[in-house]
């Protein structure tokens, strides 16, 4: 074994009060350290005598053999373990206090607390898992919500693998046919082949297109839906952010232009993560600092997945900026008619919005003072993204950028195949792009080794060390 480092330990289950908790230890000194802290029913430190891949009853004890907890302990000796090192898993009672005291004992006796992802890192460095799987596990560790977790699990389980693999098989078959025909024209006839390939190619393009589109959603779901709050100064943008976040984040004043930079907050609505950005009010301004803020607001709104457009309903006009109108035409937008508590001075109504921006735009009457409309807003957002289509249970989404890039590259290669067929180029030309598509797809599932990925994963793993 070349990867010799400390023996590490960590609580492998959630740090909550539960029935059972698991503490995992991995490294060269695992058996020695845990042996000191373990006694069997007869009171002997007998861990070292156990066979690999057994589960045993006993107690965790401190240095003075005082029993800390009654446990089951599983032993997986190197190299037949997740990390390829000696691994022990202590199944203790799940109370937070008990688990913490076992962990402290381990640390006192020579273990080091594992960093996030360190077990996987060792598995990877010791050659237990390949690059794609390592990548998926990294995503799992860094996953922000359940959706992403499920997706990473699916990737590890290989649904994405199967989809891509099936596509690759088909492409390979056609490549092989072309190669055979080039070398053995007597037995492999290419007459009319371009038409046949063209049809297949179209199917592949559609499949990739679908995967790429779902990958967009996948990325949204993983990083959170980028939600940008826009509106004129003092329309109530920062108050909305605070209401959604449930705590004071932005500075809320009555002075126009208080928010000069962009404030970001991650908010969870059931299963969806929103990355909400509060921007400076969009208006023409002479203040230099504020001007920068406004420019940034427009920019960030342009890349938003969802825009919350907040309008002061007591205002006399809807918009003084055509940049807002442009954004509204392109994006998912929810309009909030704010300050609805000041009922006697309302001048802008729902129908005014529909007249200007079309009747499809959802409009909610809100008040930040009386909390009106906030629940309705949450419901609309949830509905918008859940419409039944976005359930990750069995469908696969490509959730990382590298994979998405490879998909797009494969897609573009197939588009080039299409162009070559249309231009009546001979088969040996489009086989170049078929080969590219095949290789790009291979990168996604680790069938084509992209050596950049090694470095990338290394840098991910070695971050902060």
């Amino acid at each position, binding site marked *: 074994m070349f990867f010799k480092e400390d023996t590490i330990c960590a609580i492998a289950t959630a740090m909550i009060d539960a029935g059972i908790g698991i503490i995992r230890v991995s490294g060269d000194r695992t058996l020695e350290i845990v042996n000191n802290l373990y006694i069997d029913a007869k009171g002997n430190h007998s861990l070292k005598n156990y066979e690999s891949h057994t589960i045993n009853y006993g107690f965790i004890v401190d240095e003075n053999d005082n029993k800390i907890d009654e446990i089951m302990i599983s032993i997986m000796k190197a190299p037949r373990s997740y990390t390829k090192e000696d691994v022990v898993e202590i199944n203790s009672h799940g109370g937070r206090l008990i688990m913490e005291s076992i962990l402290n004992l381990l640390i006192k006796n020579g273990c080091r607390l594992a960093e996030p992802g360190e077990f996987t890192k060792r598995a990877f460095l010791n050659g237990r898992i390949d690059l794609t799987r390592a990548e998926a596990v990294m995503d799992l560790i860094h996953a922000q919500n359940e959706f992403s977790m499920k997706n990473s699990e699916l990737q590890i389980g290989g649904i994405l693998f199967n989809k891509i693999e099936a596509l690759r098989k088909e492409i390979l078959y056609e490549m092989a046919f072309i190669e055979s025909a080039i*070398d053995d024209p007597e037995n492999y006839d290419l007459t009319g082949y371009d038409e046949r390939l063209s049809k297949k190619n179209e199917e592949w393009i559609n499949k990739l297109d679908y995967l790429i589109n779902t990958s967009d959603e996948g990325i949204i779901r993983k990083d959170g839906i980028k939600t940008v709050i826009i509106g004129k100064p003092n329309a109530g943008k920062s108050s909305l952010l605070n209401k959604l976040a449930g705590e004071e984040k932005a500075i809320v004043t009555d002075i126009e232009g208080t928010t000069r930079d962009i404030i970001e907050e991650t908010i969870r609505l059931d299963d969806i993560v929103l990355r909400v950005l509060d921007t400076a009010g969009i208006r023409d301004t002479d203040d230099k600092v504020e001007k920068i803020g406004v420019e940034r607001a427009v920019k960030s709104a342009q890349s938003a997945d969802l825009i919350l457009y907040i309008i002061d309903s007591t205002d006399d006009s809807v918009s003084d900026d055509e940049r807002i109108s442009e954004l509204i035409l392109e994006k998912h937008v929810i309009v909030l008619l704010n300050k609805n508590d000041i009922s006697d001075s309302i001048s802008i109504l729902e129908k005014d919005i529909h007249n200007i921006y079309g009747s499809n735009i959802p409009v909610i009457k809100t008040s930040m003072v009386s909390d009106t409309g906030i629940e309705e807003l949450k419901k609309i957002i949830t509905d918008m993204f859940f419409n039944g289509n976005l359930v990750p249970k069995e469908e696969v989404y490509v959730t990382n950028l590298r994979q998405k890039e490879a998909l797009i590259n494969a897609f573009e290669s197939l588009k080039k195949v299409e162009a070559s067929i249309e231009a009546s180029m001979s088969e040996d*030309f489009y086989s170049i792009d078929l080969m590219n598509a095949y290789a790009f797809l291979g990168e996604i599932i680790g069938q084509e080794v992209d050596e950049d990925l*090694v470095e990338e994963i290394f840098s991910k793993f070695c971050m902060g060390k």
Partner: protein
Amino acid sequence: MIVDEFDVIVIGGGHAGCEASLAAARLGLKTIVFTLSVDNIAFMPCNPHIGGSSKGHLVREIDALGGEMGKNIDKTYLQSKMLNKSKGPAIHSLRAQADKMEYSKSMKMILQSQKNLTVKQAEIEEILFEELDANEDSSLLHDGYERKVIGVKTVTGLTYKGKTVILCTGTYLKSRCLCGESISYTGPNGLQPSNLLSKSLIEGGVELRRFKTGTPARMDGNSIDYSKMEVQTGDTPVIPFSFDTNPDDIQKEQYNCYLTYTNEKTHEIIRNNIDRSPIYAGIIEGIGPRYCPSIEDKVVKFPDKIRHQVFIEPEGSGTNEMYVDGMSSSMPEDVQIQMYRTVPGLENCVIVKNAYAIEYDCLCSGQLYPTLELKKIRGLFSAGQFNGSSGYEEAAAQGLFAGINASMQILGKPYLSIDRSEGYIGVLVDDIVTKDNLEPYRMMTSRAEYRLLLRQDNADIRLRKKGYEVGLISEEKYQALLQKEDQILKETERLKGIKVGASKDVQDFMDRHDSPRLKTAASLSELICRPELNYENISELDPDRPTLSKDVIEQVEINIKYEGYIERQQRQVDKFKKMENKKIPADINYDDVLSLRLEARANLKKFRPINVGQASRISGVNPADISVLLVYLENYNRSNNNH
């Protein structure tokens, strides 16, 4: 008795041996080539042609590096043709019918006229080895060497000392020929085999195996009715193989070939007698090439095909024998007669030489460095059919490559290396060295991943520089190449820079050539990109163009027309090179690389690749193994850098 000492000893005077010995002698090394029969130097025991799909590329590359095959066939061809002209330029391939006897005579004369080269008729029975001397230059000592070669011994008891030995034994090692139930213990065409050398090689630690190949019958030309066949003529004018041959010097009246077909009757005879074929009867132990199948194999493999092509080709100007291409066989001769006589035009054919299969000893895979030197034995190189390939061109290419590298070893200069993106020779050598080839290896277009860059038309641009660096290409020829490259570059740039507007004259020109009218101004190179236009036919829009040779124009046109494809292929090559540049330390212990699958570990240990790219091409090594290896190397390098 020690007769003499040589730098390079070549065993075998076939296509590999000729190139190997010429290369060494031309590099100034004292060289001797042994052959069983001086009158059969560069003999063509099978088909009477040189080149063809992908093999034509090899001949061009041999020529670019300073080899002889291209020049010799230019002098002795009977007919020549550029194949696949309807396809893209990557698979255009030159093929020439050879005047077999003239080809052989001419090559013999070249060898015998070569300075530093001795041609000797003798059978070698023993390779002489010695233990390694630890005091020797350590840079020559590879960790894999177990012993070194010091010379050879002939059956007549004479010893020739040599610093290096190149094995080019072709199909002659313990060969036997099979025709049905009849077995004769001879080399091809009844020539003497070499029965003693195998034992010496095995004693030296070389692992051998049996391969087989076959050849069709030769017919008496007077017995063939050509009126029932399609005539196949050559190209006019003929394009030479060699970059140094002046096309005007080699134009001549060409011989015809003929095309006919087998039919159901032929196949029925074969099927009825299949139990008498030595292969199907289990007599042949050697493994034959899938890509050069006998007619029996074709009938069995493609049962639905109602006919197979048969080409009738001349064997030479001094004989009326005709070669029956496509119908090699090891059936008994009585079946052969029946079978051939079912083919239109061959109804009354008289067989001069019957078809037969030949079995021979050759090298097991995994024993060669990428220089074609045996891993265990310093100074022992090998080339051609001994390495498990088939074909004259494959043999010649390896012979040249091994000849150069044996010479480089003696001269202490860097070895010649050609990777898969640089030439078909690179693909050939890499496949021979890294793959577990289970049958005779034949060059094919599909084996070259980067074939759009590896065209026969640019072999000089790809490889002349390497030939110059090793010393086989003269300064004068090298300068001519540099000038050609410069002209190509300048002309390509010029065409990109000149724009034509949408004037009436230009639009008329477009109409005349059925090309869409211009919407805006376009560069000349953009016009050349259009399928219906080319360098030639846009000349009236380009009145000030310089006078350039046909070769230069061809390159300019290809570069412009296929620019996008060439660029994409180049990017594939860049990626490939990244892996080639990831070196594997020579002292790597694969047992330390955990998680390699057993098969991968065994094969990596056996082949000991020098870089990750090569490792990825070894049989039984899959991408997961490569990522494991990459991670190991990254760790290895990181921990080494920390020290």
